[in-house]
């Protein structure tokens, strides 16, 4: 019998469990070995420094490896920590100081945390985190172009995209600094500063005519400031006031990078981008993209981009005021509350969008859009909570939340377009005046802009206004009773009501030039003396929906002794309406947890989580559930041996009735959609998504000799699934995959405080899909060895 890789890993996991059993015989309490540190001056100082080098060998798809793991070779600061403690608790600058760091030298995640405080004077904490987010998983934006060559294409041209058009390598740096002054006094002050900067190269796509790859140099910055003061002048009562200010800057811009992929040229020699999508049968980018003569040049009547750019600085500021309190002033009553108000202003400055090329559907050869976009978000929130201790065993709790936000927005823009039918012919222009210009004396003149019936207005001046608001009130009422000190329960009721309001009002002044000036919204409108047509169009829509939710809450806990704890929670929700099709009208959640520590050095954990939700009404038939069950087992019989292992099973299922348009062979079980969308009769069918995943792990530490500590572990995930495929071209993605991560290592103590470490980790990811050359291999195997020196005192 031969074992496949997945089975082999499971066998290893089982072996570890079996081999660990003898450790149970050693019923000896773990002896903690604490780092003692050195005393210097008035401080006890502990320091750990671990520096090493990582070797990495990756086979398979490195881009997917970097998307999921991104640990690459090089020297690394694996850990640096410093802890200082004042011996008499009266240090000069601080009493306690903690500073921890890891990941510096090239790892994707670098973190520094600093915390220091001086008894009654101050508490200070600072955190810096950097996350380098590499993304190139070619599925979401994979347009599934044919692997077959495109007729007459130039040498080297391939429509297959082996990399994600939405790939990115964006680094997010997050800094948080907080200072509390006079933390133990009746009047204390809090200051905070947070900064979040994301930047780096990324790509996206833009759709107009075809979809083009667009370079997107990402740059966003947030600076937020906090000032708070706490008053403790009333007995057992704390009142706080906080003022926040948050400022967001979005400086991302977009530009078509014609030369990045598949550079193609017009017969004039001008570079042109035919876009990401190649489906010539459906005229994407057109039926015949390349000329026979001159060979390999682009058909100028095809959808294509000569240039595209878009930029506009986004600035958002949020001042936020907050008052909160907490009180035990009244006997047997706990109170807490919070009120906050914020009003943000969002402003897009200097918006400028420019396109040159050809959109065959509309015959746009060039367009430019400019204009300001502004929006606000006004939020008022009030929270209140009360606990009444009726008896030592009986408590009444109530929690209320009010949240009201409204987001009005406005985009006032001007759009001017030029029209033509070929990228190598300059578009005709029209000059409005008292009479038709000489080049366009009649509305069918060849010197006029070459419109089609689908062409938009030549000049658009529009104001688009939007509004979204939601008013939410939630009240949760609970009765809690402790039957004995080992067993208790609660029962409660939650009511949530929401009113969501949506409004839009669009006003467009449209000016249509010949040819076909009576197209679109100008159909039937009298022409002006110069042959053009002007019309103002308004669109208005308003909707409001109220949703009332009622939830029954129930819970039990049992703690027969200090070593065993059991809990069970249940929530049953029913709503009379839903905002989206997949928002549940009924939801049931059942959660149970068990923690058992039969011995000081051994513990078991068990968790069950069942979530069922439905919007099972006519036309929608949405049902979904997530069922998870897992256990863990941890033991540390002595300081030389520790084992942590567990298993978890997840089952996710969803079904929803969907309608869609499809020209190919429909999947089985489809029927005509009962609600007709204009143009075609779409199909309807139940969209299914189901995955089952098994997760097992163990982490073992063993110290066979005084100077040697070994570590061995494994984390494995095996998932299978199925989903509806509307088209056979759709790649299955990670529905059926295995992700295995065995690791091991040892540490040899060289001298007091010094040790030498060697660690190995293996990352094995594979998708069990039929190989598709358009998608490529998405699996990888990565072997990593890290050698390090660790010094701690």
């Amino acid at each position, binding site marked *: 019998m031969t074992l496949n890789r997945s089975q082999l890993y499971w066998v290893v996991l089982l072996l570890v469990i079996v081999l660990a059993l003898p450790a149970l015989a050693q019923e000896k309490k773990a002896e*903690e070995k604490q780092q003692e540190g050195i005393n210097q001056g008035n401080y006890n100082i502990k320091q750990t420094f671990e520096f090493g080098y990582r070797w990495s060998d990756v086979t398979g798809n490195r881009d997917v490896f970097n998307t999921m793991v991104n640990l690459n070779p090089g020297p690394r600061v694996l850990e640096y920590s410093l802890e200082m403690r004042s011996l008499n608790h*009266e240090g000069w600058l601080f009493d306690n100081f903690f500073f921890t760091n890891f990941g510096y030298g090239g790892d994707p995640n670098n*973190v520094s945390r600093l915390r220091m405080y001086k*008894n*009654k004077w101050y508490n200070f904490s600072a955190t810096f985190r950097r*996350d380098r987010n590499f993304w190139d998983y070619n599925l*979401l*934006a*994979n347009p*599934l172009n044919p692997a077959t060559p495109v007729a007459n294409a130039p040498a080297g041209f391939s429509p297959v995209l082996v990399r994600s058009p939405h790939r990115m390598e964006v680094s997010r740096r*997050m800094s948080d600094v907080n200072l509390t002054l006079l933390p133990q006094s009746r009047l204390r002050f809090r200051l905070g500063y947070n900064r*979040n900067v994301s930047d780096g190269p990324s790509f996206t796509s833009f759709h107009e005519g075809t*979809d083009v790859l667009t370079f997107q140099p990402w740059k*966003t910055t947030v600076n*937020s400031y906090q000032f708070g003061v706490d008053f403790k002048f009333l007995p057992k009562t704390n009142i*706080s006031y906080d003022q926040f200010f948050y400022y*967001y800057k979005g400086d991302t811009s977009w530009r078509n990078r014609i030369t990045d992929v598949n550079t193609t040229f017009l017969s004039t020699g001008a570079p042109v981008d035919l876009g990401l999508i190649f489906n010539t049968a*459906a005229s994407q980018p057109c039926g015949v993209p390349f000329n026979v003569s001159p060979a390999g040049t682009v058909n100028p009547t095809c959808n294509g981009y000569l240039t595209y750019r*878009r930029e506009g600085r*986004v600035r*958002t500021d949020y001042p936020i005021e*907050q008052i909160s309190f*907490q009180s035990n002033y009244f006997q047997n009553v706990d109170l807490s509350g919070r009120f906050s108000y*914020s009003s943000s202003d969002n402003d897009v400055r200097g918006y400028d969008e420019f396109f040159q090329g050809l959109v065959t559907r509309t015959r746009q050869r060039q367009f430019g859009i400019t204009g300001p976009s502004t929006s606000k978000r006004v*939020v008022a929130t009030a929270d209140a909570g009360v*606990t009444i201790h009726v008896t*030592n065993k009986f408590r009444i709790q109530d929690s209320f939340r009010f949240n009201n936000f409204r*987001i009005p*927005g406005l*985009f006032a823009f001007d759009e001017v377009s030029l029209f033509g039918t070929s990228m190598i012919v300059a578009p005709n222009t029209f000059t409005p005046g008292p009479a038709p210009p000489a080049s366009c004396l009649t509305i069918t003149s060849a010197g006029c802009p070459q419109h089609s019936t689908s062409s938009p207005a030549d000049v658009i001046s529009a104001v688009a206004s939007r509004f979204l608001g939601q008013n939410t009130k939630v009240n949760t009422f609970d009765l809690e*009773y402790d*039957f*004995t000190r080992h067993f208790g329960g609660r029962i409660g009721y939650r009511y949530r009501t*929401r009113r969501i309001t949506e409004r839009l009002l669009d006003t467009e002044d449209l000016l249509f030039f010949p040819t076909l000036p009576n197209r679109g919204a100008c159909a039937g409108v009298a022409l002006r003396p110069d042959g053009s047509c002007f019309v103002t169009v308004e669109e208005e829509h308003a909707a409001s929906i109220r949703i009332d939710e009622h939830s029954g809450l129930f*819970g039990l806990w049992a*703690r027969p002794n200090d070593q065993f704890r059991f809990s069970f929670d249940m929530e049953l929700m029913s709503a009379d309406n839903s*905002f*989206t*099709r*997949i928002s549940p009208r009924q939801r049931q959640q059942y959660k149970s947890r068990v923690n058992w520590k039969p011995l000081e050095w051994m513990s078991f954990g*068990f*968790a069950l989580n069942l979530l069922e939700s439905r919007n099972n009404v006519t036309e929608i038939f949405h049902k979904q559930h997530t069922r998870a069950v*897992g256990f863990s087992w941890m033991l540390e019989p002595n300081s030389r041996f520790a084992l*942590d292992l*567990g298993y978890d099973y997840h089952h996710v299922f969803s079904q929803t009735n*969907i309608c*869609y*348009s499809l020209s190919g062979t429909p999947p089985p079980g489809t029927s005509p*959609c009962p*609600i007709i*969308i204009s143009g075609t009769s779409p199909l309807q069918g139940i*969209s299914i*998504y189901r995955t089952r*995943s098994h*997760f097992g792990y163990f982490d073992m530490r063993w110290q066979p000799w005084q100077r040697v500590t070994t570590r061995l572990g494994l984390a494995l*995930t095996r998932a299978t699934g199925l*989903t509806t495929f*509307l*088209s056979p071209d759709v790649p299955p993605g990670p*529905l059926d995959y295995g992700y295995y991560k065995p690791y091991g290592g040892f540490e040899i103590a060289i001298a007091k405080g010094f040790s030498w470490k060697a660690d190995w980790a293996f990352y094995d990811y594979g998708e069990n899909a039929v190989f598709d050359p358009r998608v490529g291999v998405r699996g990888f195997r990565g072997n990593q060895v890290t050698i390090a020196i660790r010094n701690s005192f």
Partner: protein
Amino acid sequence: MTQSQSHRSRFLFLLLATGVVALLLAGSLAAGDRTPAKKSVPPQAKDLSQYIGAETCKGCHEENFKKLETTPHWKTMLDTRRGKEWQGCEACHGPGMEHMIAGGDKSKIFGFKGVTTEKINARCLDCHQYGEEHSNFARSVHARNNVSCISCHSIHRAKESQFLLIAKQPQLCFSCHVESKPDFSRPFRHRVNEGLLKCTDCHNQHGGFLTKQLRGTAAQDVVCFKCHVDKAGPFTYEHHPVKTEGCMTCHLPHGSANPRLLRRSQVNLLCLECHTLSSDIDIPSAPSFHNQSQKYQACTVCHINIHGSNQSNVFFK
């Protein structure tokens, strides 16, 4: 409302009503408890002569004394303003005189073993409840499920010197939340195991006003926007469910088998689940020219700014 829905609502109401009555009856019958409420047994006795001072405790409990000396609780020794009853060992364990006279009789002093969770929490909250971080602990899911302060913290035997935790995050959280552990080992995940994020960055373990003990931003928005700042808006063209239903409509926040932590493996199916015309839901359906067999496999190839846009009502830019 259909007949079956009406029946379900009635059933739910009856179930709740029965449960309330049952619980109240059981409560009144059980142990005949008529003890007036006393949220905690305050450690502070009025007779200050009952306090013997930490140095006296050290005589028998030297190891614990030494541990205490290395922890932030030592600062109570230095705070003479509030009196002896708030200092050192007796600030938590109560007056030690009787315990000492009785030769160390454990029943003569407050110990944290074998007492109710409520009493344990009350002891800690006497000092720690002020401030937003702890002010809702009594109503937290943890407290209601009998999880006490010492389930996560240890005053004398902490393994983490910061916050006196009994284990590091996330292992500490995983010891109960077993079912969440695999999410952070999935191919697409938030980097919690890697140390970039902590569970407590998103959840307030001490409770709050939001469900799932979630934190929020200062502007009372979802906590996701604290890091994903570009998705917060406000936008002229909002994708409404982002703001009304929340990120979890489309994403699984801990980790997912699907790229971008999505709930479905195909973006189009996820979109179509909502964007199908229905009689009573005012959501635009996918237009007829979105032919699913013509290379439109991922809606987000075109609708790139799906979280909200300032310039495009269909989120193209």
